[in-house]
């Protein structure tokens, strides 16, 4: 538990500026895509980010992969801030797998090309590239590798393509793998195969994996820790079984009650119906307050602090703040700014 995280994002914030209105009246306003999110990835652990579409999961992933520059916050690799401009040394440590396996492989190139390039760019092979390509394909269970190396993407099924994409990410022997919804575009029957592959890579190659998904059941299956995002912010983080069995944040509770679950005896009661807010003008205080069944006065104007509900289990919700303190904070006596959830966790 004391090992330092491999990759860490601290207080990441990203606004996208979009045009509002038409013609001369158009002005730019910010979409608060990610607000003050901190995350850390450990070797040999899968951390899952769960949240609905638009919650900011992809944006966090892209910031961590240094594709997008954050407005605020820093990305640290082994505790050292990463230089801007995505140096090659960074590419060698942190790799990403994209959501759509049909878009992430260039249709005009053979699988071999996709796997050779990273090897060549980082001078990882001298001489026998074919052998290295075969090894990679075997690592992602595409056997016999010879048969797959010379195929074009359109000759592969979705699951096979996603395996090729993972193999490409593994080519540089990274220490961190960021997987943005790697199975959501795949058929149900082949999803588990890819999830099991990720679990296997975590165990065998000690990868630190960030698994992004909107499917909380698959996060529970694969991940060691689940982090729940809502409207650009972290709302809860806990070990995966703990989080799904004892959700502490009202939004997590809503998410769990809405997830399809054939084992359920009766239809669930949805507490907090409605849709996520517009990120152009997110609600003040707790962003979930317009939907929250437990909303209190303080929630409307003050962002809740991150509270350790139990060791390793953090929730950003006023419900878990001691009533006296809550009262005090409401009166403006005690300024409890949002803590960094990941920090207080460790």
């Amino acid at each position: 538990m004391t090992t330092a995280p491999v990759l860490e994002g601290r207080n990441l914030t990203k606004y996208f500026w979009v045009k509002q209105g038409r013609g001369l009246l158009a002005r730019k306003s910010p979409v608060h895509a990610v607000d003050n999110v901190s995350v850390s990835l450990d070797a040999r652990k899968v951390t899952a980010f769960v949240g609905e579409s638009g919650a900011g999961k992809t944006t966090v992933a892209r910031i961590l992969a240094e594709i997008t520059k954050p407005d605020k916050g820093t990305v640290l690799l082994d505790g050292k801030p990463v230089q801007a401009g995505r140096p090659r040394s960074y590419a060698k440590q942190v790799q990403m797998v994209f959501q759509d396996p049909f878009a992430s492989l260039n249709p005009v190139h053979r699988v071999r090309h996709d796997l050779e390039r990273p090897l060549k760019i980082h001078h990882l092979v001298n001489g026998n590239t074919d052998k290295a390509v075969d090894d990679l394909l075997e690592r992602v269970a595409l056997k016999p590798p010879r048969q797959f190396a010379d195929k074009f993407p359109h000759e592969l099924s979705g699951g096979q393509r996603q395996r090729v994409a993972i193999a490409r990410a593994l080519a540089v022997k990274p220490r961190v793998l960021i997987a943005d919804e790697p199975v959501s575009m795949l058929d149900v029957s082949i999803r588990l195969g890819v999830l099991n592959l990720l679990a296997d890579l975590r165990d065998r190659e000690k990868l630190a994996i960030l698994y992004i998904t909107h499917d909380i059941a698959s996060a529970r299956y694969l991940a060691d820790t689940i982090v729940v995002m809502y409207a650009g912010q972290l709302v809860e983080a806990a070990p995966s079984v703990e989080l799904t069995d004892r959700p502490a944040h009202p939004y997590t509770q809503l998410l769990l009650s809405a997830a399809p679950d054939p084992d359920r005896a009766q239809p669930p009661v949805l507490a907090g119906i409605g849709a996520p807010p517009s990120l152009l003008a997110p609600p003040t205080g707790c962003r979930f307050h317009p939907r929250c069944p437990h909303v209190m006065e303080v929630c409307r104007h003050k962002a809740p602090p991150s509270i350790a509900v139990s060791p390793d289990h953090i929730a950003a919700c006023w419900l878990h703040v001691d009533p006296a303190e809550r009262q005090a904070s409401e009166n403006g006596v005690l300024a409890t700014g949002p803590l960094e959830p990941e920090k207080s966790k460790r």
Partner: protein
Amino acid sequence: MTIDSTTLTQVPVTLERARVLRIPRSPKVIAGLVILGVFSVVAIIGRWITPYSPNATDTQNWVQHVLVPGTGGDSGFPASYYPLPLGPSAAHWLGTTVFAQDAWSQLLASTQATMFVGLLAAAIATVLSIIFGVTAGYIGGATDEGLSLVANVSLAIPGLPLLIVLADYVPSAGSSLVLVAAIIAVTTWAYTARTLRAQTLSLRNRDFVEASRVSGEGPLRIIGVEILPNLIPIVAASFLFTSLTAIYAYVAISFLGLAGSPTGSPPGLWNWGEMLREGFANNAVRGGWWWWWAPPGICVALLGTGLALVNFGIDEFINPRLRTSGLTARAARKAGAHVSTTLGLTPVMRGAATVPNTTPSTADAVLEIRGLSVDYGYGDQAVHAVRDCDLVLRRGRVLGLAGESGSGKTTLALAAIRLLRAPAVITEGQVLFHSKPFTRDNPKETIDMLAAGPHRLREIRWSEIAVVLQSSLNALNPVTTIGAQFDDLLRAHRPRMSRDERYTRGVELLDMVGMNGDRLRSYPHELSGGMRQRAMIAMALALEPQVMVLDEPTTALDVVTQREILEELMGLRDRLGFAALFITHDLSLLVEFADDIAVMYAGRLMERAPANSLFRAPRLPYTHGLLHCFPPMHGKRVPMAGIPGSPPDLRDLPSGCAFHPRCKWALDQCKHDVPVLGSIPGPNREVACWLHRNGATPPAELSLAEPGDVMRERLSQVNIQ
């Protein structure tokens, strides 16, 4: 945002390698290539095979014709003698010009200059457009704005007039092929550059480009190796287009006499425009000397046609929908399908609709599908997307249709209501709609959906059978308000309603799907995805249909919205009594919301059972596998295996049971014989699997006890009329 449904109209925007490299075999393209080939050969060797020099005067055969006899007088100069061109003869295949020059030789010699200008201009324009377009698109930002400005300025330069002025001002300009080509290129490259920029812009953010950036690839290689190959079709198309433009422009300035005469000074080059000019200047048309002016004209037209035909072929590559629609009408006729051009009317193969037995198989059947087979394409190229499917939708019940992507769920449902377009074709089967409208003014009757004409189908669709598609998130008209769209719909189908009644009905409908009546004033873009989908459902319900076809109605939405909408829909079903065919790949969702479930695999229905029976006691190995693909939300975490292998390719189906390569209980028989759906013990259960036939003993996993009376009876409240 789970599985991306292979919506029937979706085509990948990038090209597959195979398509880039394979030469199209359409007759149009071949004709175009032949024309271009012939002209190219002539352009290269034309100079050497001319029987005469194009400038040489054939004085021997020069016939002098007295136009105005007697006016010569005693001047001693035959002023009134006018030279007469010769018609085609053995010596001069295309006759001669008024100057006794051989027209055939001129034609041959002209090809080179004309084509050279075309190719050179196209080459310059292409290089310019790639450099500017791709750079602007890839780098973006200020560079993009700067380069776009340059492009727009050069678009504003009128090409032909500039050329005319320039050629007039500097006589040598017109006769320099390179200069002419350069001017044409400079004034046309920007069109292509704009397209390339837009394409690059979209490719730049494609995952595969981002992926190579993440792997540490530098920008030059990304542009050259990842992006450019995907632009080849556009580049090729615009190359052809620019050549065509350049050829026309060159012919035009020559025709105006600005490209220099081959016999003048400085000497111009022979080209078709020059031939035309001389012909017209010397009364070739009035004189009826067609052999002089017609051949160059035809050549210009032919070369243009050739380029256009090849360009058309490239367009078909870029846009595969053109390809299918163009080719299939003929193929369909050959195959004996009656293809109606009416939009959204699935063709039916002649002889498919035999005289139907129209008695409902159960009293409460509303939509009955019997032995339906649907192909995409005809003859050898046909993909058998749906084969021999039987399905009965019962009044007031929800029938779930589950299966992997590509298993044929959408095809089955949409073909049954004849909503698929060619190349889809119904090859076999019957579809009966036993109509008992909720609105009193329409009669009870049974409609044979495969025999019904377009008019009849239009009447039924929407008012009796409504469809909500996954892509209906975009199906609302973006330029009018939700209210106006409700209003149009009601006005068309309920002409007797007054404006106020229509408005009240609109508010009522929105209220039904949990939306505020104010939203009638909203434009679709002002609504969230969930609200748009609700509005679509409200519209589908507007005319009180008896059947709702829901094709992945909530797949694009988040789980909370999904559950809200589905619960509302089920509540409405209880209240209004419509039957629903609910398609989704998410079996766990169906188990909660459907009364009965049918499971499809590779175009066939494989198992049918009440939802709870199917979930508690699956009989089909595939269903069993699917149910074990959803990690549970409770209890200890245990490793799960999913189903090995991947879904089959419909073009190349395994023999026998299509599932056998992935089935852990496959018998020998499964490799050879196709199992058909047949009853097995249990409430309304059917399965297509050899494990449940001929006294075979199914494994314990597939012979669990029926759940019995725990089955939910949602139906009790629904009153069946």
